[in-house]
């Protein structure tokens, strides 16, 4: 291997990227834009659930319950109705997702210490939101019940009294774990996309025929093509991390240097994958499409970003081991939220390195300095 030839290829690639404003914009703007779009769009937090109230009691207790729901911030009362059938209208039209129906004797029963039923209807067509809403209502009513019992001088009912503390993401902000995962997904796509064009472009433009007629060796060619994109990838990761911390307010608990170091290992695999796709495709359009599908789907669905890997069927779980984004999602979440050190991430780091080396080796084997 000759450093001079690697340098020549890298230098040439750099000039070409620099003189192509479109690819330059894609390289630096795409991660930022994707992070913006997805960062704001994807949120698993449920706030301001539109709620309709049917209060037949109109007593102090029912008032207090409803005020408590609004004050929690999770519910917004969008209407009060005076007929059970009106509730149907609200839910059918989607004007409300939650309906709370309070019976006439709600306050009376509570004062007497008799259990007071509370009817809650939730629109289950979005089961995720429905489940969360039910959880909120349960928590609110339990809290309310024990407060009422306390006021009456009775001992609170529950025998088991859980004191829950949430670690790593104490505010339970979904953004805090979505953004680090999102950076991993975006970088998986960008890395492959960046390099997927480089080899295919040379075949398309006819420059490859001239290039393979020189004594340049295949690893020199591939490393030379990887280097400039490695630099771009680093800048992209850094930009994403800065956005996460300063725009989205995600706390970075761990070391930025460890994060960058492990990103480097991830980029090596991702960029090599792009090169491999490019070698197989020989046309820029096909290469970019393959790399989009081959990176985005597995990264999005099988990395544990969206769906917990532990809940997947066994066959899928096995497949996730071959998805590099899986390790990178774990690494970024770990460093961001838990402040993980390299010792805790040694497994992910090792498997990520293996992935990179294997793909790089295949790319080297696959690339032949021959036509036809």
């Amino acid at each position, binding site marked *: 291997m000759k450093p001079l030839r690697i340098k020549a290829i890298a230098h040439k690639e750099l000039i070409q990227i620099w003189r192509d404003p479109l690819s330059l914009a894609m390289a630096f703007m795409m991660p930022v834009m994707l992070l913006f779009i997805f960062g704001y769009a994807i949120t698993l937090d449920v706030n301001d659930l539109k709620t309709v109230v049917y209060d037949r009691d109109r007593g102090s207790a029912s008032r207090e319950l409803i005020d408590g729901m609004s004050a929690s911030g999770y519910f917004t009362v969008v209407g009060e109705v005076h007929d059970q059938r009106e509730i149907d209208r609200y839910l059918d039209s989607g004007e409300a997702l939650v309906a709370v129906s309070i019976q006439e004797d709600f306050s009376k029963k509570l004062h007497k210490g008799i259990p007071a039923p509370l009817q809650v209807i939730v629109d289950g067509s979005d089961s995720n939101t429905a489940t969360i809403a039910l959880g909120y209502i349960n928590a609110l009513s339990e809290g309310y019940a024990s407060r009422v019992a306390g006021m009456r001088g009775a001992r609170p009912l529950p025998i088991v009294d859980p004191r829950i503390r949430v670690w790593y993401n104490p505010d339970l902000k979904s953004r805090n774990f979505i953004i680090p995962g999102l950076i991993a997904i975006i970088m998986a796509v960008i890395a492959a996309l960046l390099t997927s064009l480089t080899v295919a472009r040379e075949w398309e433009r006819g420059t490859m*025929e*001239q290039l393979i*007629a*020189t*004594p340049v060796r295949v690893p020199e060619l591939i490393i030379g093509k990887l280097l400039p994109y490695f630099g771009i990838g680093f800048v992209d990761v850094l930009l994403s991390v800065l956005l996460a911390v300063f725009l989205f307010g995600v706390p970075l608990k761990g070391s930025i240097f460890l994060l960058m170091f492990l990103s480097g290992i991830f980029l090596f695999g991702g960029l090599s994958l792009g090169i491999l796709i490019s070698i197989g495709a020989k046309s820029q359009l096909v290469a970019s499409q393959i790399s989009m599908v081959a990176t985005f789907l597995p990264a999005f669905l099988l990395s544990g970003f969206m769906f917990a890997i532990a809940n997947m069927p066994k066959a899928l779980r096995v497949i996730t081991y071959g998805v590099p984004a899986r390790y990178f999602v774990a690494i970024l979440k770990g460093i961001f939220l838990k402040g993980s050190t390299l010792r805790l991430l040694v497994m992910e780091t090792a498997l990520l390195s293996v992935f990179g080396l294997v793909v790089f080796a295949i790319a080297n084997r696959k690339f032949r300095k021959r036509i036809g």
Partner: protein
Amino acid sequence: MNEPAIVTKDLTRTFGPVVAVDRLNLGVAKGSLFGIVGPDGGGKSTVMRMLAAIMEPTSGGAWVAGLSVTGDGEGVKERIGYMSQRFGLYEDLTVIENIDFYADLYEVPKKERQQRIERLLGFSNLTPFSGRLAGRLSGGMKQKLGLACALVHTPEVLLLDEPTNGVDPVSRRDFWKILYDLLKEGITIFISTAYLDEAERCTRVGLMHNGRLLMEETPDAIKRSLGRPMIELWSDNPRKAAEVLRSCRGIGGISIYGQKLHITIEKEEFSCDTVSLMRDKGIEVKGYREILPSLEDVFIAKVKEL
């Protein structure tokens, strides 16, 4: 005759059912200028690519600068300069960046580089354009840049695949002037071309058609190889004249070049009778004479014989 720079032995390449190059046997002497001519799709580029070790032969072998293209392809690549038929340089790099890039790939020593690049820019008249993007060069200048890049490591053998295709006549002449200068330095040049006037300038010429080498000789020998006289005839109405001539016996082949007809005579003498016959039919014959056939005449005759 010194040892050959290029040797091929039963060199064959097929693409599925198509035989692009069929058992090619060639020897090209060191320091000579060998031209391979023939129509598009005749297999010229395939030969070029196999000699440049960028295409695997299906069977047979080739040796360039003493090395086997199959056994030591990378070694061959160090010793040759290759110019593909399609412009293969980076249009988004400047002239000097392209040359520098290839100088790096061939590991041209830094000490010699400056001087060598200046010389290459000088003889190709590209010095004033060294900062211009290759994509903004004219066709002729692009080809000269391609040549400069192929020469940056002073190769022993130069493989040029239709380098003057689509280049204006003046640039073509400049390009050939450069080739003659290179020949004086002892470099071996293997060039393919569709222009037969260019083939006449080669030391030896090979005629390729449908993957087969029809003949391989010096241009003069090829011209004499027809073995039959050829008549050149001028007429106002060459198409009609050709029509009449085709009905006569003893006429081998007729090619029309503007107002001139080149007629191969098979057996009988080309007689004044024929001329008067044409005049009777109202075709004016301005004159005729016996000529030495051009390469084109021979090539067309050879292809017709198949």
